[in-house]
């Protein structure tokens, strides 16, 4: 999320955006329209800054959440973490799962039980 977005609205050129029939209006009405367009432009710029800040906050929240996940991973716990929130452009919903993946222990248990079962069958 760089500051490039802020520059983009500089492209807006009010004069080229005058609606059809603009020049048929009275001077007063033309002034009103120009004012409306300028107000709108300022409103959009403000909205853009708000959205940009919201995105930065969302990015920070996700980063904090993922750091917490890393800590849980170091404690070798099985966990599930749910993060959700709003960004400048919409919203996000993130579900992270992880934990101790020592597969060998349950495998050894299962194999042991099978061997015991087979011994039992043979002895019967």
């Amino acid at each position, binding site marked *: 999320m760089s500051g490039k977005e802020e520059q983009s609205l500089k492209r807006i050129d009010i004069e080229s955006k005058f609606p059809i029939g603009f020049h048929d209006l009275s001077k007063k009405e033309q002034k009103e*329209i120009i004012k409306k367009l300028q107000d*709108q432009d300022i409103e959009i710029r403000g909205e853009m800054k708000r959205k940009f800040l919201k995105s930065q906050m*969302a990015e920070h929240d996700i980063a904090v959440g993922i750091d917490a996940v890393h800590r849980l991973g170091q404690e070798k716990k099985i966990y599930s973490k749910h993060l959700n929130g709003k*960004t400048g452009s*919409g919203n996000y*919903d993130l*579900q992270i799962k992880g934990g101790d993946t020592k597969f060998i222990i349950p495998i050894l248990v299962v194999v042991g039980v099978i061997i015991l079962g087979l011994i039992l069958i043979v002895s019967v």
Partner: protein
Amino acid sequence: MSSYYDEYIKKYQTLSLREKYEILFPSEYSKSYSKSLKFVRNEFFNLDQLGFDRFLYLYERKYGPGPTQYVKKIYSSWRSGMTKMVRKTEERILICVPPVLNKEKQFKLLAIQIPEIIRQQKKGFKDLEMCTSNLVEVYNKAAQNVVKRQYNLDWFVSEVFPPEELEEFLNVIKYTMLDCLKQSYQSVCKDLNQLDNYIPKTSGAVQISYNISLFSRNLKFDVFPITNITDLKLPMVEPLFVTKFQDYYRKILLNHAINQYKEEAIGQVNSQISISDVNAITEQIERIGKDKEHDTNLLIRGFGGNIHLHIQKKNIGRLQFEITKEYFKLFLIICVAFVGIVLLLELEQNVLLFFGGIFLLSVIGSIWERISKLKTEVREYERKRRTKFEAD
């Protein structure tokens, strides 16, 4: 049955125009009609002496001196709320009050119909099949629908406003809708052209769906990348203004143009922020780690629609381990069951063998189901990694 039908027809014929309208268009009745009625009643009770005299003159010409005398007599009771106006009188007032109102108020009354017309226009878009291969056709069909559609306005509108005023009114609304279609098409094309920028660069599975804002419908990606994006040529003819409302229409079109300009600017902002959001969130989820799983849903806004990104990362190793574990479990149960069956046969415990068999089959069935589910999960994940686009 036939007697009921005859009775119904007889009853229907005696109904007033408004009651018939209520039966024919029940959903349309409650919204714009009740708003119009409220507006006209309010204006009726706030008429000045000159306006009230003009209203009485019109009322007498239309309904005769008897009902007019009644209106004169009871007007103050209606106004104070002591007497409730009957439906028939309400209808008459709805017809006779608007002509005595000034131009601005008459236009306000007509403008109450606008949301209903837009609703009817959008209703016409429901049957359109939205695919990337036929985007131009979809918009052309939508435009044809807007132009050729017969709009059901409230019953009193045609009684109050002459046909040329109604035609001009509908032409202005059609023109604005066609312009919205044109802008939506351009915006959707911009989004499709830069769809690659919205796709996160990740090793997991990414699924994308796109919802066109104007239609509130998902776009099916049957062709991608789209090579046949052509210019949309809509039958747009700027409406001619001839009636007394022409100043209002000019204002409507000016405001519409200003709003379109705003939408375009907002679309541009949305698109840029969306791309930077996708990049930032992808960067973060890449930090999660290879051994962990995540399921991320991102809803972002483009120029002309909403983009839903579903990013998934599964630990294939874990899934394969789960499958192996379930196979071991199944093998173990079969072994134990075999021993049990042999023992029960030797002891001739047939009843126990029967019920035990049923229980055993259900356990094996549930384990098998879990194995299939896990296998499907792996297959589905691999499929999602290969294909990105999701149909609606």
